[in-house]
C-alpha cells in the first residue's frame, strides 16, 4: 500500500516531463516545466532530502521557471520558423530508440547498485561535532567540502559576468532589464508592497535555521532575490546601473570574505578553509552572513539580465 505514495507522484512527474518534451507550443511546454519543477519537490521530500526540496522549489522551479516563461513569451515569434525545422520522422524515431536504450542501460545500472549502499553518513556524523552545526548538510557544505561552496559562489559570479558581457556596447554600464512601470495603485503594486517584507523575513528565517535544520543561504538568498525582482517588476524601483562600484563591491563581498577566512585558516588551523578549534561555528556564521547578501544580489542581477538601458533613464518614462 505504501508504494502508491511513491508511484503516483513518480508517474505524475514522468507524465509532466513527457508533456514538456512533446507539447507543440513552447509556452505550454514551459508552463508544464514549472509544474514539473514543483512536483519534483514532492519527490525530494519523499527521498528525505528536505534541503534539496527547498533548493529545487526555490531555484529549480521558481527562478528557472520565471526565466523560461519570460523567454518563451518573448520568443513566440520564432515558433513557426522553429516548427518548420523539425527533423524528419526517421530522425525522431532514431532519437527515441537511442534515448530509450540509454534509459534502459541506466535502469540496469541503477538496479545493479550494491545492496549495502556505500555511504559517508558515518564519517559525517563522526566529524560533525567540532563544526558546531546541527544540520549535517550544512556541515558538509560549510566545513568538509567548503571549497565546493566557494567555487559555487564563483560560478554564480562568473555567470553574471557572462550575462553582462552580452550587453550591447552602446548601453554598457547601464541598467539591466526593461523599465517596468505597472499601474502604481494596481494589484501588482499592491502585492509588491505587501509580500516583500514577509518574503524577506521568511528568507532570513530559512537562512538562519539552516545551521541546525533544513535551510541555508542559497535557499534564503533565492527568496530575497525573488522579492527584489517582484518589487522591480512592479516598477516601484529601478535596477541599479552596473557601472556603480558599490554594486560590484557588494557582489564580491561574500566570496572575498570566504577566501579571506579560508586563507586565515591556513595560519590558524593549518589548511585552507580549515577552522581553528572552537571557532568553527562563529566563522561559519560570519561566512554565511557575508555570502547571503552577495548571493541574493548576484541571483537577482542574473535574473534581471544584461544591461539594456542607459544609466540616466528617467524614472517615469512612457511605457513601451
Amino acid at each position: 500500500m505504501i508504494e502508491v505514495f511513491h508511484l503516483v507522484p513518480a508517474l505524475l512527474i514522468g507524465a509532466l516531463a513527457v508533456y514538456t518534451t512533446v507539447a507543440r507550443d513552447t509556452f505550454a511546454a514551459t508552463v508544464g516545466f514549472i509544474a514539473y519543477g514543483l512536483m519534483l519537490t514532492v519527490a525530494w521530500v519523499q527521498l528525505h532530502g528536505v534541503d534539496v526540496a527547498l533548493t529545487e522549489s526555490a531555484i529549480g522551479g521558481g527562478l528557472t521557471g520565471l526565466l523560461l516563461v519570460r523567454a518563451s513569451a518573448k520568443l513566440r515569434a520564432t515558433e513557426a520558423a522553429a516548427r518548420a525545422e523539425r527533423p524528419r520522422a526517421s530522425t525522431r524515431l532514431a532519437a527515441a530508440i537511442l534515448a530509450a536504450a540509454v534509459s534502459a542501460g541506466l535502469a540496469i545500472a541503477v538496479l545493479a547498485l550494491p545492496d549495502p549502499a556505500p555511504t559517508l553518513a558515518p564519517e559525517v556524523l563522526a566529524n560533525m561535532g567540532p563544526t558546531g552545526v546541527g544540520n549535517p548538510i550544512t556541515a558538509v557544505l560549510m566545513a568538509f567540502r567548503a571549497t565546493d561552496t566557494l567555487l559555487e559562489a564563483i560560478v554564480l559570479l562568473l555567470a553574471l559576468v557572462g550575462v553582462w558581457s552580452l550587453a550591447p556596447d552602446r548601453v554598457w554600464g547601464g541598467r539591466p532589464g526593461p523599465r517596468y512601470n505597472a499601474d502604481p495603485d494596481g494589484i501588482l503594486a499592491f502585492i509588491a508592497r505587501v509580500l516583500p517584507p514577509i518574503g524577506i523575513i521568511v528568507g532570513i528565517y530559512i537562512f538562519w535555521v539552516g545551521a541546525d535544520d533544513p535551510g541555508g543561504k542559497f535557499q534564503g538568498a533565492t527568496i530575497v532575490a525573488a522579492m527584489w525582482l517582484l518589487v522591480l517588476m512592479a516598477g516601484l524601483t529601478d535596477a541599479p546601473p552596473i557601472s556603480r562600484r558599490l554594486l560590484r563591491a557588494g557582489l564580491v563581498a561574500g566570496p572575498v570574505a570566504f577566501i579571506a577566512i579560508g586563507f586565515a585558516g591556513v595560519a590558524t588551523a593549518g589548511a585552507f578553509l580549515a577552522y581553528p578549534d572552537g571557532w568553527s561555528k562563529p566563522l561559519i556564521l560570519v561566512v554565511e552572513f557575508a555570502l547571503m547578501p552577495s548571493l541574493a544580489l548576484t541571483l537577482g542581477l542574473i535574473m534581471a539580465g544584461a544591461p539594456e538601458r542607459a544609466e540616466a533613464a528617467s524614472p517615469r518614462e512612457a511605457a513601451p
Partner: protein
Amino acid sequence: MTADAVTTPGGLLLPLAVLVPFLGMIAGLVLGGRNAQRVAMVTIVAGVAIALGIAQSMLQSGDTLVYVLGGFAPPLGIALRADGLSVVMMVAVAVVIGGIGVYARGDFGTPDGVREARAPLMYWLLLLAVWGSLNLVFTSGDLFTLYVALELLTFAGVPLVCLDGKGETLRSALRYLLFALAGSIFYLLGAVLVYGEWGTLDVALLAQRVQPGPVTWAAAALMTTGLLAKTALFPLHLWLPPAHAGAPPAASAVLSALVVKGSFFIVVRLWFDAMPALPGFAAAQLLAGLGAAAIIVGNVVALRQERLKLLIAYSTLAQIGYLFIMFPLAFDAGTGAFVRGEALAGGMLQAISHATAKAAMFLAAGLIYATLGHDRIADLAGAARRVPLSVLAFALGGVALTGALPSGAYVAKKLLLGAADASGQWWWALVLQAGGLFTTGYVLLVLSHALRASADAPAPRVRVRRSQEAAALALAACSLLLGFADVVLPGDLVKSPLDPGELATLVVTVAAGAAIALALGRRLPALPAGAALAAIGSPIRRATVAVGLLVERLDFALRHWHVAGLSLVVLTLLFAAAMSGAR
C-alpha cells in the same frame, strides 16, 4: 583503511594557483575600466611565478604534491593533487596565457576618453577565469570538483566566443554552450553512478576500489563521451569550427590552445589514474579510431577552406584527434591497464606543443587580418612583405605542428612511434605519419600564398604593434624549442639535424606535403611551371578534389544538431559496449 592523503610541503601553492586568477577577476571587476587590464597583468606575473614555484617544488620532492583542503582528508573532504602531468600542463598554460596577455594589450586596451568599455573589461575577466578553472582542472582530485571546474571553464569560454556581439558569433556561442552543457551533464551522470557504486569521488581512492561492473562501465562510458563532447573530438565537433573561427583572435587563441585541453586532461585523469584497468583494449581502439577520423576529416576540410581562421580551427580539430592516438599505445596488454609510460609522455608533449603553436598561429592570423583587412587565403599575396614577422610566427607555429626536428611535436611523434612499435600497433604509426604530412600540406599551402609577391602593392592598413608580433613569435619559438625538453625524457631521441636519416625524413615530408596541398588545396597559387604541372596533374587533381568535396560534405552533415546529438548517444552506447566487452 587506506592511508589518508596528507598535505605535502609546498602544497599550499595549489590552492593559490587556483584562487589567484579568480581573485584577479574579482579585483578586475570591482576596480573596472583600465584597472582590469593592470590587475590582469599583475595576476599573470603572479600566476607564472606560482606555476614555476610548483614545478620547482615538484622537481625538488620528486613526488606528487598534495594539499588537503579544509583539513578533512578524502573521502570526506577534497584533496588537490599535482603530479607530473598537472605541473607540466600548468606551466604550459601559464606561459601561453602570458603570451596571449601581452598580445591582447593591443586589441583589448580600453580606448581613451572612455572610463570603461565592455569588450576590454570582459576579455581580461574571462581570460583570468579560464586560467583559474584550468588550474582547478589540473589539480582537483575530486570528480565533483572537476565537474564544477568544467562548468567554470565553459562559462568563461562561451562569452569569449561572442565577445564582438555579432549575430553569427552569438549563434556559434549558443550552439557551443548547449552542446557543452550536454557533455557536462553526461559527465555528472557518470560521476553520480561512480559515487553510487564506490562511495567516494576521490580519484586516488577510486584507483584502489574500482572493479569492472555494469555500473562502472555505464559511468565510464558516460563520463568519457561527455568529455569528448566538450573536447569536440570527431564526430562531436559541430560547435568548434564556427566558435573558434568567429571569436576575436586573442579569444580564439585561448579557446583553441587552452580551453579544449581542460576536458582532454580529465579523460587522461580518468583513464590513467581513476580507473586504469577498466576501459580495456577495445575502448582504446575506438577512442583512437575517432582520433584518426578527426585527423583525416579535420585536415582535408582544413585544406579546402577559403578563410585562414577557419583553416586553423579545422587544424585544431585534427590536432585534437592526434592527442587521442596515445591511448591504445599506452595500453599494457599484460596487466590490461593503461600505464604511465612513453606514450603518455608523448601525448602530453603533443598537447603542450599544440597549445603554444596553435596560440601563435591564431595570434599571427589576427595580425594578418588586421593588416590586410581580410583573411581570404587566396588573396594573401604580399602578406609576407607587409607583415613579415606575423607570417614568420605563423610559419614557425605551423612547422612546430608538423613535427619538424627541434619542435616538441617531433619528440612527441618519436615517443608515440616508439610506443607503437613496442606494442606492434603499426596502424597507429601510419596514422601518426599521415597526420604530419597533412599538417605540412596546409602549412605549405598558406605559406605559398603568403610568400607570393602581390601584383599591386597597397600601403599597409594599420601599423601592427611590435609587442603583439613579439608575443606571437615568442609562443611559436616556445613550441619549436620544446624539442630540447628531451633532456628530461628518457633515451637519445633527438639526433642532430644533419643526420642523414633526419634529412631524408624532412625532404619526404615536405614533398608529400606539397603533393597533398596541390591535390586538395582549394585555391592553388600560380606556380612557375603551372601549365605543365596542371596538364599532367589535372585528372589526379579532379579525383582528389572530388574526394575532398565528399569529406567536406560528410563534415557538414555531421555538424547538423540532431546528427551530432544522435552520435553523442551512439558513442555512449558504443563505449559502454566496448568497455563491457573487455572482460
